């Protein structure tokens, strides 16, 4: 269980994290979503006591991280890939971290096996690919068999097999009753992996919800209809105060109603339908909708339009 209360972090004039309060419960994979620069990594560093909050507090299993004497048994973290000395072997990297918490060679061999780096354990990490670095970082997180796990962008740089492996690992860790917090900017990945979502933008909380609720509550839900009598149907719907948009392909997009309601109206008026489908926005679309105002850097729409007309 991770609990943050009013967590804020200011760097000079920038408020990187702004009054975040959230709970990460055990037994679930909680996705931590936000555009780049939204404060995900800063928040994770504050959870681990690496950065001190400007105000607010965060506890892991009821205690501030800094109070743990052997934190690897309580919390495992993958922060950035390759936060390691390139001249040291993977084995010695893990051993030096493990020894500080009284964890020995046998366990180091185990986690190297578990992440599929057995053969590369004696190689120096400077020659590792990003994916191998991620696996080594995950091995470090697993060293103390902790009840709480934090992963910052764990699938970055992994090949498809690695992505699948991380996905299954996260789910199995949560299924064992552990607390799992995973940050990502990849919505699709989170919709598959995570049960719960914490969504932030510009350091502020946008939503703390489940994946299903997040998709259902969007304003983008609409119904798509195609019919030979599209004009008549559009007129009918408009008189009932329902917004209708006519698409270039002749289809109608109807917002603010359900496919059942549209079907009823069509039937009652003897209008034959060729297509009737409910359209639910993807996680990406919902995310874009929610964070539109909170993205620091985005390409301007139509930026390549002619300078003068």
């Amino acid at each position: 269980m991770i609990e943050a209360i009013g967590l804020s972090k200011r760097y000079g004039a920038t408020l990187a994290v702004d009054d975040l309060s959230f709970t990460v419960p055990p037994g679930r994979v909680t996705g931590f979503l936000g555009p780049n620069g939204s404060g995900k990594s800063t928040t994770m560093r504050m959870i681990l006591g690496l950065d001190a909050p400007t105000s607010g507090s965060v506890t892991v299993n009821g205690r501030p991280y800094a109070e743990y004497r052997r934190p690897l048994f309580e919390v495992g973290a993958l922060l950035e890939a390759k936060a390691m000395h390139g001249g040291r072997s993977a084995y010695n990297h893990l051993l030096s971290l493990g020894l500080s918490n009284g964890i020995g060679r046998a366990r180091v061999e185990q986690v190297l096996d578990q992440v599929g780096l057995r053969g590369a354990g004696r190689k120096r990490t400077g020659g590792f690919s990003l994916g191998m670095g991620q696996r080594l970082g995950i091995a470090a997180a697993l060293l103390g068999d902790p009840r709480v796990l934090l992963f910052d962008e764990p699938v970055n740089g992994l090949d498809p097999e690695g992505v699948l492996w991380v996905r299954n690992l996260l789910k199995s860790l949560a299924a064992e009753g552990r607390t799992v917090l995973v940050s990502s900017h990849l919505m699709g990945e989170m919709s598959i992996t995570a049960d719960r979502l914490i969504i932030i933008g510009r350091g502020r909380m946008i939503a703390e919800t489940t994946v299903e609720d997040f998709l259902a509550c969007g304003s983008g839900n609409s119904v798509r209809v195609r019919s030979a009598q599209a004009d008549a149907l559009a007129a009918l719907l408009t008189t009932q105060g329902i917004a209708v948009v006519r698409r270039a392909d002749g289809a109608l997009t109807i917002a603010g109603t359900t496919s059942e309601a549209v079907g009823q109206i069509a039937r009652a008026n003897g209008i034959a339908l060729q297509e009737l489908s409910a359209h639910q926005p993807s996680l990406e679309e919902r995310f874009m909708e929610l964070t539109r105002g909170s993205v620091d850097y985005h390409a301007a729409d139509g930026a390549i339009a002619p300078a003068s007309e």
Partner: protein
Amino acid sequence: MEASTTPQTSYSRLSGFADLLRSEFCKFRSVRSTYWTLFAAVAFNVVLAALAAIFLPGQLSAHEKATVDPVRLSLGGIHLSQIAFGVLGVLVITSEYTTGMIRATLSAVPQRRLMLAAKVVVFAVSALIVGVLSSVGAYFVFQAFLTDSALKTSITDPGVLRAVIGGGLFVTALGLLGLGLGAIMRASAGAIATVFGLLFVPPVLLQLLPHAWKDAIGPYIPMVAGGQIYALHPEAGALGPWTGFGLFCLYAAVALGVGFVLINRRDA
């Protein structure tokens, strides 16, 4: 949450620090730069002692032979090996910051000052062993290659053992000064430049000052104060061997002290 059955409860302060020492020693021994710098340090000391013993006596006048410090001559390699020890002291801490390893380290050991203390102990003990051995080695190699009896000394002569051991003490304290500056600056290049700036620049600047100032300030600059510990005869006007070395250690202690204060105050 169920009651804590983790090793949290079996933790004792002393065994905890022993774990940190093991962890830091593992880091120290598992990178090549450690071996390269220590090898270079030993090689400089021993090889320069042999060269000095073979070639210098023929170049010195009888008067020079009578006035030169024969022990200091045998430890001439320290002028080079000190660079290796200084650099290694800096790298022990700055390599954590330049590689990003520090975040993994401090996630495993949130008690930052204990982690830094373990680093200091591991480096100090290792540097002391290698420093003293290479200094003693240099002394005996010098005596072995020496054919000129005017420069011969015995390890049992007054002050000789202190000076020879002092060579190891000096490079250890210099390395600790580097470690302290590394902890403050968290960047290799800046910290290395500062260590050797503090060591080599004051003697040059001193030459620009009037005599009275030179005499007043000269004995206290790091290189002069620290250098007396590995001289058989202290230079005229210089502090005594232990007083001078004590002051040199104080400089290192100040740098380390600031490092210890800052490590808890800054974001990693």
